[in-house]
């Protein structure tokens, strides 16, 4: 071929054609021209060339007007009229596409192949960056286009569409599929798809150094035999394998190396359908598209191709084909499944994984921590540890703060002795005792959340969820029910809202009815404050026993509801268990703070208002509790409260937990002042146990009830939930008090 080099488009006459060699100008200018299609190897024909003004050229099927200066910046090789025919001349500039997943070192391979001879722009009409370049080997030019990194060619994203359209429409002479040898399985899906298109494929097996470092042995020759396409091992980051890649490219496109790819096998059951679809679409398939590929993609449910073919085909034929595809809508599972099977076969042949699992510590720990028996014991020990930490550190601090609040109250009363009595009582008895006592929860909650945050951030909580599902499964609770129930340990409100993920209405109602029986953090905090007041050093064990009994009731209820009223919903999970890792204290700090901030917000609103209301009805109209409005109501309730061994004041405090669970403490503080000293003298030990059980099982807060109403969409089930909890809380407390009083 004879060419006259160092010419520009401006040197071409009307009707002459040249091949773009390079662009001259600033980076932005070059990028703009490249985006218009003026990349290495592109054929450009002058359509109109006035002596002044823009030159009209044809390139890549479109017409573009170039200024005289612009045309002078595009160097070309002109096709001499005495040279070989244009078609043959064009084959001397081979076009290569680089394809592959993101992060497999594709850009490094591109840079090494092209050196500085590259252009950056955008794909025409897209915001996706296009990089193209070239290299020359043995006198032959190769233009390289770096396709966007994609996981497949399913047109799920703009990048995938660009990559597949380029291969289909531009028909490069070769596609170099770059894969990561260290994660070969993950890189191969796109290769399985590339092999179905109309350009030959060469595999650049990159990152061999990384694979070797991880003890993974990859056999390029075995892979080559299995795939039936050339495989070039590379370590592009070290510049290794580039010369071999260039040689293989040359061998493929210039010398026609052997190419017999092994393709994923479509199930025989789908072959007739596939053939039928191909028969129906083939008259209408665009010229660039292989009809067997179009048929396969339509069977896979490719929306882009589907809408394109809908436009191309007569309506009746389209409808017939669409109905056929609809009948086989799950065929995609077999088509994609065959690719995974193919990947497995290829990788098993060529890759030897190290004998020892790379997960190391995680795998070793999980052998025990996810074991059905040992793991369950560990889970119980872990949760007991959280309680122990809360009691041993948070308890004493809370008691100190409680004493401080009581002393402050006395100080306020003394300081305001000259003022009307109700002012001092309002500030000390209402605001300080109510809100102040609740604020003394902060250390307990901080430790509780810190411990949970640690378990979450180290990766253990995922194991707890995994084990819990197994436990609950054994107790008649299945699948999606267990997650809202776990969520309930934090707060029942989002847990009830989380039941929305359960499609079956019956299972959703069953779970929503069970969630309020999960002891939420607010209930647990109240128990953590009250238990030491009555049980001192034994508080930890009493709490463990009560929470354990609470969970048994929860599971028993699950079984009963499941058997009596609700259907069995079988749902399986594959639960990701993240690697164990050292905790990040900033993350945990944020988690603790977010939860404490939420608590403070609640304390400053719902709890404060409820405390003030309780104070008002316990002070007015006489200034004495026993003769106040609340006292009158309390005395009326005494026949009921005495059944579970509680003074009416304590019973009323429990009832106020309907607004928010923490209100039990706030009300007790309003009514008794220093609860640490007052309560043990008015509540016996059996009554104390009954009180704690009542606190755990009583009707949930108003927010949870509203959520139950919303999610069950049923007043009947909402009332059932409230009545069920009332009956159970009272019944269990009565039983505890009655039995305890016998000793």
């Amino acid at each position, binding site marked *: 071929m004879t060419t006259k080099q160092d010419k520009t488009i401006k040197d071409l006459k009307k009707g002459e054609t040249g091949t773009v060699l390079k662009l001259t100008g600033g980076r932005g200018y070059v990028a703009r021209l490249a985006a218009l299609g003026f990349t290495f190897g592109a054929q450009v024909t002058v359509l109109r060339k006035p002596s002044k003004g823009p030159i009209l050229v044809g390139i890549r099927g479109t017409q573009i007007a170039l200024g005289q200066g612009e045309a002078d910046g595009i160097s070309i090789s002109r096709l001499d009229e005495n040279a070989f025919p244009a078609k043959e001349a064009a084959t001397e500039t081979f076009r290569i596409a680089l394809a592959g997943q993101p992060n497999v070192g594709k850009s490094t391979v591109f840079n090494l192949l092209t050196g500085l001879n590259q252009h950056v722009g955008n794909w025409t009409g897209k915001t996706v960056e296009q990089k193209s370049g070239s290299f020359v080997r043995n006198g032959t030019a190769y233009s390289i286009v770096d396709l966007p990194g994609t996981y497949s060619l399913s047109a799920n994203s703009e990048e995938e569409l660009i990559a597949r359209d380029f291969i289909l429409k531009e028909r490069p002479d070769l596609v170099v599929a770059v894969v990561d040898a260290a994660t070969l399985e993950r890189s191969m899906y796109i290769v399985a798809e590339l092999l179905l298109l109309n350009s030959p494929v060469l595999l650049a097996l990159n990152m061999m150094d990384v694979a070797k470092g991880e003890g993974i042995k990859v056999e390029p020759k075995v892979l080559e035999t299995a795939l039936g396409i050339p495989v070039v091992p590379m370590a592009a980051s070290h510049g290794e394998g580039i010369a071999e890649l260039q040689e293989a490219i040359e061998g493929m496109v210039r010398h026609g190396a052997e190419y017999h790819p092994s393709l994923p096998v479509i199930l025989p059951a789908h072959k007739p359908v596939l053939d039928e679809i191909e028969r129906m679409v083939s008259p209408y398939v665009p010229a660039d598209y292989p009809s067997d590929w179009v048929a396969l993609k339509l069977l896979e449910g490719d929306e882009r191709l589907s809408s394109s073919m809908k436009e191309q085909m007569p309506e009746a034929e389209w409808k017939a084909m669409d109905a056929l595809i609809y009948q086989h809508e799950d065929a995609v*599972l077999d088509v994609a499944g065959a690719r995974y099977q193919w990947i497995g076969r290829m990788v098993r042949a060529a890759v030897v994984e190290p004998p020892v699992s790379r997960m190391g510590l995680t795998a070793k720990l999980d052998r025990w921590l996810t074991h059905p028996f040992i793991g369950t014991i560990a889970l119980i020990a872990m949760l007991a540890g959280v309680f122990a930490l809360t009691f041993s550190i948070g308890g004493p601090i809370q008691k100190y703060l409680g004493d401080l609040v009581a002393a402050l109250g006395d100080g306020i009363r003394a300081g305001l002795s000259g003022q009307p009595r109700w002012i001092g009582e309002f500030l000390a008895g209402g605001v300080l005792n109510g809100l102040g006592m609740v604020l003394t929860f902060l250390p307990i909650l901080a430790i509780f959340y810190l411990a949970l945050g640690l378990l979450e951030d180290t990766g253990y909580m995922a194991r707890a969820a995994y084990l819990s599902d197994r436990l609950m499964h054994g107790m008649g609770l299945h699948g999606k029910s267990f997650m809202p129930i776990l969520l309930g340990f*934090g*707060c029942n*409100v989002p847990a009830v809202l989380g039941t929305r993920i359960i499609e079956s209405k019956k299972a959703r109602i069953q779970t929503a009815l069970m969630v309020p029986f999960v002891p939420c953090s607010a209930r647990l905090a109240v128990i953590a404050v009250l238990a030491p007041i009555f049980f001192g050093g034994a508080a930890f064990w009493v709490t463990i026993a009560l929470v354990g009994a609470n969970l048994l009731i929860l599971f028993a209820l699950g079984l009963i509801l499941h058997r009596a009223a609700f259907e069995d919903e079988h749902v399986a999970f594959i639960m990701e268990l993240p690697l164990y890792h050292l905790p990040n204290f900033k993350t945990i700090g944020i988690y603790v703070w*977010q939860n404490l901030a939420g608590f403070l917000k609640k304390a400053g609103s719902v709890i404060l208002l409820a405390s003030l209301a309780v104070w008002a009805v316990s002070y007015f109209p006489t200034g004495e509790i026993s003769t106040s409005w609340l006292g009158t109501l309390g005395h009326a309730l005494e026949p009921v409260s005495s059944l579970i061994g509680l003074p009416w004041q304590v019973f009323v405090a429990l009832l106020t937990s309907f607004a928010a669970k923490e209100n039990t403490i706030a009300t007790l503080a309003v009514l008794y002042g220093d609860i640490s000293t007052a309560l043990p003298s008015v509540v016996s030990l059996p009554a104390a146990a009954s009180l704690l059980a009542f606190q755990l099982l009583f009707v949930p807060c108003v927010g949870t009830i509203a959520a139950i109403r919303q999610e069950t969409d049923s007043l009947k089930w909402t009332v059932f939930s409230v009545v069920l909890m009332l009956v159970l809380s009272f019944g269990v407390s009565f039983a505890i008090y009655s039995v305890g009083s016998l000793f």
Partner: protein
Amino acid sequence: MLRELLSLLAGDGAFSPDEAASKLGVSVATLDDMLAKLVALGYAEDAAKAMACAAGNGAKKTGGCAGCPMAGHCHGAGTKAWTLTAKGREAAARG
């Protein structure tokens, strides 16, 4: 291969990725990819994420994740629990 995974998810119980991969005779990496494919096709979903989203408004109302074991999802790194969607269950039932 995806059919086998669909059948596994249409059964009962919780599996770790290691267990599931071993049952299907594939590597964990392939299992991850197959799960992602089922999610992309609408046959499966990350139920933990779906629940975190459903509970999100409630969590906001109560001022935080409040000890939620799935709280990590709100911060972008929590437990993933793949399960079938209604479409997936229908496909599994069709066989």
